């Protein structure tokens, strides 16, 4: 929260309505897609009755660190023998996920909002420093946070990546859903089993993103989180001269 001892605060527009709606709508939709997808994946994930089918796992050769997923995980989800439930919800919510995702991509393009998201080369270095800063590495703390606009370098990379990952999930999903009718797509992605593997790891990517994203949001505090609901953030009022200098600094670093 900005230091109120200044006496002067500002309420500033931060996130457009369209972004807020599409962001929050995506949360339950993607949750249902992942949940229903897991119910479907259960059908192939358990190594039944001596069949050496490729189970997704983290490991090398015959050594497996973790099998995706162990029995307790499936029981927690109440997944066994609910393939039809998975198929039902997945093939309904896929439309909502696609429409919301495409609408977001179109909005970003048309509104020009993509400019604050699209990462530049410098942002990749920034992202490393931001990560080290968050991890309280002393060298990074001494260096301080890099100058940023609306989003820091790590955010730009992450928020651009998830749009690309969403498109990836749709394309790999379509290639799994219609591997004969859309066989050109399935073949381009490396075949049916490869498309399934890609679809699975994109999903794990979303889960990883979610965990980091929620942790970062929690660390950024209420004022920041609130802005994604109400659209407004409380900021310190600055003199117009200082504001002009700030603008120059941000522009120069782009």
């Amino acid at each position, binding site marked *: 929260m900005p230091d109120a001892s200044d006496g002067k*605060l*500002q309420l500033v527009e931060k996130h457009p309505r369209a972004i807020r709606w599409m962001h929050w709508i995506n949360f339950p939709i993607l949750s249902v897609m992942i949940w229903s997808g897991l119910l479907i994946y259960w059908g192939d994930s358990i190594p039944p009755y001596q*069949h050496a089918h490729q189970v997704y796992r983290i490991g090398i050769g015959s050594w497996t660190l973790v099998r995706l997923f162990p029995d307790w995980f499936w029981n927690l989800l109440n997944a066994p023998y609910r393939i039809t439930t998975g198929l039902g919800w997945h093939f309904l919510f896929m439309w909502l996920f696609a429409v919301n995702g495409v609408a977001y991509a179109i909005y970003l393009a048309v509104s020009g909002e993509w400019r604050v998201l699209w990462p530049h080369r410098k942002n990749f270095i920034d992202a490393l420093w931001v990560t080290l800063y968050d991890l309280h590495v002393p060298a990074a703390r001494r260096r301080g946070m890099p100058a940023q606009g609306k989003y820091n370098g790590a955010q730009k990379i992450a928020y651009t990546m998830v749009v690309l990952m969403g498109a990836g999930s749709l394309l790999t999903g379509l290639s799994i859903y219609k591997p004969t009718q859309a066989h050109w797509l399935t073949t381009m992605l490396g075949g049916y089993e490869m498309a399934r593997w890609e679809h699975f790891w994109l999903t794990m990517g979303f889960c990883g993103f979610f965990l980091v994203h929620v942790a970062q949001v929690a660390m950024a505090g209420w004022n920041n989180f609130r802005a994604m609901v109400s659209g407004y953030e409380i900021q310190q009022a600055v003199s117009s001269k200082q504001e002009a200098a700030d603008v120059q600094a941000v522009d120069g670093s782009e």
Partner: protein
Amino acid sequence: MSEQDHERVVASGDATTVKRESARRTRRSFLVGGVAAAAGYGVSRWIANSPDDLRIQSALRKTWNFDAAVSRAVFDERGLAPTYHVSQAKPLRLNGIVGLDDVLPVEGWRLQIAGVANAEHSPFYAPDVTAWEYKYAAATAPGEVDHDLKSAPGNGSVSKTGKATELNPSGAVDSDAGAALAAHIEALMKATSKKRHEGSDEAGPSKNALDIGTPGLLLTMDELMKLPHVELVTEFKCIEGWSNVTHWGGVRLRDLIDAYPPEKVNGREPRYVYMETPNGDYYCGYDMAAARHPQSLLVTEMGGQPLLQEHGAPLRLHTPIKYGYKQIKRIGLIAYTDEKPDDYWTKLGYDWYAGL
């Protein structure tokens, strides 16, 4: 261009004023968000509580039907599945032997075809196709087969576990109690039924089982093999997720339909094709367009060898535009019909269209 340009200031001044304005807007947006979330939750509950329609909520089954309509409109079953070299083919994983209770040698088998135009003028005409008695080899207890993951065990069907070899026993045998129950149900049904057999597996009897006295054609395998022989290597796909490049040999279903065309309905072809196993336990329905797809095959060979009993000897279906659960093993009857036919896995909660 500065991002500051986007950031319009809507209030400024002392902390109290700004925080009050922020709180006002925050309250309003959380309220709107709360209403939207409640509405979304309400819709999902409505979907989850919609009435049962063959073991799946009707809202979800309607979604599948919508998806099928979109698929037909966009693709029109045009897609030809990629084919592979014979050397890439592997033995097909065995999954599910509903309808395959006993060994059926090809001499004891006939292909029943019902709904054929001018059937009575055919040399293969039979006034009652259901009268054909399938001549099974000495009844054997099914051997071990993999448990089918598509339905939960203990759902009324006699469960089987392990691996099968030509339906000979090699281990676990069906429980006596299970077998006795199945026999009892079958006897009850025969006593009250106008059908010669009734499905006795988990999905129960088919609505499309032929009435006793249904005329049609009875074909021997020799007669069927007069149709042009076709070999195909495609990737078989199961709804469970696994896939298997398989080498198939047989005749095109399209060629059978052209050789023994259906009776027309209002001047056009009937909309559907129905198939079932000789004992009526397993049955499937298809759009005529899917049946006529050039890669839909009546299969007699796999991997260059005659079809094994556990893979549906003497005749099974392969079609790479459908999931495996539509690719019925041991076809006993092919019928043309204008009403959407009954379907084993559809009754157990799966999608009828099952299109790839």
